[in-house]
């Protein structure tokens, strides 16, 4: 009965979403020519967050990467952390959507920890495929796996929002995409069971949970089953990394969003022979790297998502 009530609300929400503009949050999602553009802070957005929950998303730090696309990935992570430290309103916590390291080396995990801990914020991680290169995923799990299930999935609550961290980078199958697997999907079903459909849900995972560009592996094989479990909820926000650029899509009550990397940009789908690191002019690099600021305000349907490049 409760879910029926919220389903009705969902229909009107869908209408609101068609406008793609959120009055009050001051955040504008712009999709031009099929390519979503970086979001800007509009009007009072920066001042509006105090009454809600604000958290940050950082992604794809690739600590250890030193190739031409960015010879100093640790340096740009430090810049991102500097930006977080300088925020006027302190976020409640940080979500890192994976590829903390480039090669899963202990020294890379150490360096990442040393820099990211300077935010003095709790950080909730999920692994990227670059963090699970060692046999048995020991290095990631030893550091970040406490209190998680399987290869590192878990959920937690903050300010009435239910957060779910998923792992879609292990046990990948030949010819396939990202993969959640049956064990994790069963856990997800159980985790959501009995929750009120009015609970705002934030799902975060490394590889996009929607089909961005399967030819480059940018999607998750069995994400449809996960989204099926989520469809009765009135507000679902899906945060991903992996593709090193901002993309977003709204489908029903689900808003999908991918973050920039702090290390190097990747080409738009199909714009290059492969999704490898993209070398851009040195003075342009920092406009393509950055962090994402997410605000949830009670009573509003959507989380406000603001992507902040390292440099204007």
């Amino acid at each position, binding site marked *: 009965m409760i879910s029926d009530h919220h389903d009705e609300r969902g229909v009107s929400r869908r209408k609101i979403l068609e406008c793609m503009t959120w009055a009050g949050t001051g955040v504008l999602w712009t999709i031009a020519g099929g390519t979503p553009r970086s979001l800007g802070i509009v009007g009072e957005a920066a001042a509006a967050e105090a009454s809600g929950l604000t958290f940050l998303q950082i992604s794809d730090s690739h600590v250890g990467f030193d190739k*031409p696309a960015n010879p100093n990935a640790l340096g740009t992570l430090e810049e991102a952390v500097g930006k977080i430290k300088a925020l006027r309103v302190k976020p409640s916590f940080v979500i890192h959507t994976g590829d903390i390291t480039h*090669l899963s080396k202990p020294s890379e995990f150490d360096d990442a920890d040393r820099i990211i801990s300077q935010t003095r914020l709790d950080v909730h991680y999920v692994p990227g*495929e670059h963090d699970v*290169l060692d046999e048995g995923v020991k290095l990631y799990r030893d550091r970040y796996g406490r209190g998680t299930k399987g290869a590192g999935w878990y959920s937690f609550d903050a300010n009435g929002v239910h957060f779910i961290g998923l792992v879609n980078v292990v046990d990948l199958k030949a010819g396939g*995409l990202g993969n959640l697997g049956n064990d994790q999907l069963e856990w997800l079903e159980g985790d959501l069971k009995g929750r009120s459909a009015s609970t705002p849900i934030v799902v975060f995972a490394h590889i996009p949970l929607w089909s961005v560009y399967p030819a*480059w*592996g940018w999607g998750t094989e069995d994400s449809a089953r996960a989204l099926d479990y989520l469809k009765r909820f009135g507000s679902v926000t899906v945060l991903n990394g992996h593709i090193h650029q901002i993309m977003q899509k709204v489908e029903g009550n689900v808003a999908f969003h991918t973050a920039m990397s702090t290390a190097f940009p990747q080409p738009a789908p199909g714009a290059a022979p492969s999704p490898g690191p993209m070398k851009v002019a040195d003075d342009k690099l920092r406009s393509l790297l950055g962090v994402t600021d997410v605000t949830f305000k009670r009573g509003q349907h959507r989380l406000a998502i603001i992507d902040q490049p390292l440099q204007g």
Partner: protein
Amino acid sequence: MTRTLCVAIALAAAVLAAAAALPAASAQAADTEVLIDQFTFTPQRITVKAGTTVTWTNEDDVPHTIASSSKLFKSKALDTGDKFSFTFTTPGTYEYFCSVHPHMTGAVVVEAATGSNVAQ
């Protein structure tokens, strides 16, 4: 004059080098190379004689692996410039993929070595 001479010497050297490379390239069970470049195994499908050692070299800026679909072999993550070799002794078709980027797939087709000698 000098420049012409230099070019002639360079050309002669190149021809000699090419000639020297030919026998190795045509020998059936000689070692075979597969390059990983732009998230692609090149050549994507190779046919070799039993006994051939195939060596993969990663030329991308991101790590890749070579993982047999039947779990016969699996490399560690290969950083830029790293190599992995496997010797195929039994005829058959061996599908493999990159376990980091599973849309990358390849195959090694191993044929029985003809005659009494693998090296022909």
